[in-house]
C-alpha cells in the first residue's frame, strides 16, 4: 500500500469514528424532539391545566397525570426508604469491616442481584410477595404500592451499594487515622468521620438508585395492581407513569389524542429522571473535587 492510500484510509476512519460520536448527540436530540413534538400535539388538543391538576386518568374523559405522578412518587419514595439505609449500611460493612475473603463473596452476590431481569422480580411480586402482603395485612389483593416499593428497593440496592462503596472507599485513609489517633473508636470514626466525608457520593448513589426506581417499568407493571386513582396509603393499588405507557401504548391508534397523551406523560418522566440524574452527577463531581 502506498503512503497516499494509507493516509486516505486513516482519514476515512477518523471521520467514521467521529460520526459515531456525533450520532450520539443526534440520538439524544431525536428522543428529546420526539417527546417535545408529540407533547405539543397533545397540549394543542387539551389544556395543560387539566393535565396537571385533574384528578383522574381516564381516556374517556380526562388525561390527568396527577394520579400517575403520585403513584410513581409513592413507589419510588417507598423503595428509597427501604433501600437507602440498607444499601449504605451494607456498603459500609463491605468496605470498612468485612474480611477480604468475605468481600470476594459479597461482591458477586451484589452483581448477581443486579443481573436478575426486572420481569423475574415482578413475577415474584405476583407469586410470592403479593400473597405474603395480603396475609400480613389482611387484605384481598397484595398487588399494591408496598409490593412495588419492596421490589424496587431490591432492584435499586445494587446501584446504591456499589456507588456508596466507591464513595466510602474514596475517603482518604488519613481521615480515619486522624480520628482513631484522637481516641475515637471505630464506630465513632465510621459514623462521625468516614460517612459524613462520603456524603456527596452517598447522595449521588441515592439519586442514581432513585433514577432507576423511577424509570423501572416491568416490576411495577406486574406488582402494583395498576389502578389509576390517587393512592391514599401504601396498601392501595397504584399505577405509575411507566406502567401506564406500557399498558396503553400497545392499544392506542396512531396519532390520536390518547397516543399523544402517552408521550406527554413520557416527557414528564423524562424531565424528572433527567433532573434526578443531573443532581446525582453534580454530587458525584463534588465528591471528586473534595478529595483532590
Amino acid at each position, binding site marked *: 500500500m502506498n503512503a497516499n492510500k494509507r493516509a486516505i484510509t486513516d482519514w476515512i476512519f477518523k471521520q*467514521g469514528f467521529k460520526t459515531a460520536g456525533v*450520532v*450520539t448527540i443526534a440520538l439524544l436530540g431525536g428522543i428529546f424532539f420526539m417527546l417535545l413534538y408529540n407533547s405539543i400535539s397533545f397540549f394543542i388538543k387539551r389544556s395543560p391545566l387539566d393535565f396537571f391538576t385533574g384528578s383522574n386518568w381516564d381516556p374517556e374523559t380526562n388525561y390527568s397525570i396527577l394520579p400517575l405522578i403520585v403513584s410513581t412518587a409513592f413507589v419510588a419514595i417507598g423503595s428509597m426508604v427501604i433501600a437507602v439505609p440498607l444499601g449504605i449500611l451494607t456498603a459500609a460493612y*463491605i468496605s470498612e469491616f468485612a474480611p477480604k475473603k468475605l468481600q470476594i463473596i459479597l461482591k458477586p452476590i451484589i452483581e448477581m442481584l443486579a443481573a436478575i431481569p426486572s420481569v*423475574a422480580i415482578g413475577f415474584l411480586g405476583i407469586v410470592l410477595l403479593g400473597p405474603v402482603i395480603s396475609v400480613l395485612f389482611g387484605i384481598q389483593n397484595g398487588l399494591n404500592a408496598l409490593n412495588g416499593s419492596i421490589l424496587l428497593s431490591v432492584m435499586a440496592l445494587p446501584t446504591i451499594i456499589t456507588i456508596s462503596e466507591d464513595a466510602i472507599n474514596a475517603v482518604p485513609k488519613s481521615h480515619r487515622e486522624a480520628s482513631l489517633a484522637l481516641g475515637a473508636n471505630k464506630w465513632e470514626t465510621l459514623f462521625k468521620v468516614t460517612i459524613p466525608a462520603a456524603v456527596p457520593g452517598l447522595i449521588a448513589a441515592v439519586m442514581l438508585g432513585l*433514577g432507576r426506581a423511577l*424509570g423501572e417499568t416491568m416490576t411495577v407493571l406486574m406488582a402494583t395492581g395498576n389502578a389509576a386513582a390517587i393512592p391514599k396509603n401504601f396498601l392501595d393499588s397504584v399505577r405509575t407513569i*411507566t406502567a401506564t405507557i406500557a399498558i396503553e401504548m400497545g392499544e392506542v391508534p396512531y396519532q390520536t389524542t390518547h397516543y399523544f397523551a402517552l408521550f406527554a406523560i413520557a416527557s414528564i418522566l423524562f424531565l424528572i429522571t433527567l433532573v434526578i440524574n443531573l443532581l446525582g452527577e453534580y454530587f458525584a463531581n463534588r465528591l471528586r473535587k473534595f478529595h483532590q
Partner: protein
Amino acid sequence: MKKKFSHLINWILLIGSTFLVCTFLGIILWDIFSKGAPALSWDFITQYPTNGMTKGGILPAMVGTVLLTFITTLFAVPFGVSCAVYLNEYAKPSLLTNIIRASIRNLAGIPSIIYGLFGLALFVQGLHFGTSVLSAGLTLGLLSLPYIITTTEEALKRIPNSMREATLALGATQFETIKDVILPKALPGILTGVILTLSRAAGETAPILFTGVAFYINGVTTSVNQEFMALPYHLYMLSTQHSAIETVRPLAYATAVVLIILVFMLNTVAFIIRFKYRTQD
C-alpha cells in the same frame, strides 16, 4: 457496659443489613429454582408451545431472544466501539467532546420504556420497519449504546500511552495503531463490557413491548421483518395475561429459570474473561 451495648447494636445493624441483602438474592433464586426446576426439561426448551400455551415448550421464545440479541449486537457493538475509539483516541477536550460525553451520560439515565417509545416512533413508524425483530433489536441496541461506549472507553484507557507512541514512531498511521495494536490489546475488556450489556438487553422487556414482540407466533421467527417471541415477555404474559393463569404457573416458573440461567451464563463468561485479563497484566 453501655458502650458495649451500642457496639453490639452497630454490629447488628451493619451485618444485619448485609445479610438481608444476601437473603433477597437467596429468596429470589430459591423460590424460582425450587418451583421452576420440576417443570424444566429438555423438551421444554426444544418444543413449540401447544394447547393454547398451557403445554409444550418455549422454543420460539428462545429463538426470538437469541435473534433479538444478535441484531442488538450487530448494531450496537460497531457503533458503540467506534464512538468510544473516537472519544479516547482522537477527541481533544473541546465543546463537541463535552457535548458528546454529556449526551452519553444522559442517554444512560433515560428510562427503558422511553427507548421503547422512540423505537416505535423511529423504526416501526418512521422507517416503516413495522413491528418486527429488526425494530426491537435496533431499539435495544440504542438502549445498550451508552453502556457499550462507557465500558469500551474504560478498556481503552487501560492501554498505556507508550504502546501508542511506539507504534506511531514506527511509522504506523493512527488508524493502523488502533486497528493492529490498541483494539486487540483492549479486546478482553471490551468483550466483558459487551457481554454484560447484552445480558441486560436480553432480559429487557419494556423496550420491545411496542416494537415487535408477540405473545404467540406460528413456528419460529426466521426473518428480521417478522414479529417474535421473547423469554422475558413470555414470562410477563404467562404470569399476568394468560386466561388460565394458575394452570400455566409452572411454565412461568420454568421460563423464569431459563431466563435467569441465560443471564447468569453470560455474566459468568464476562467474569471469566475479566478474571483472566486481570491476572495477565
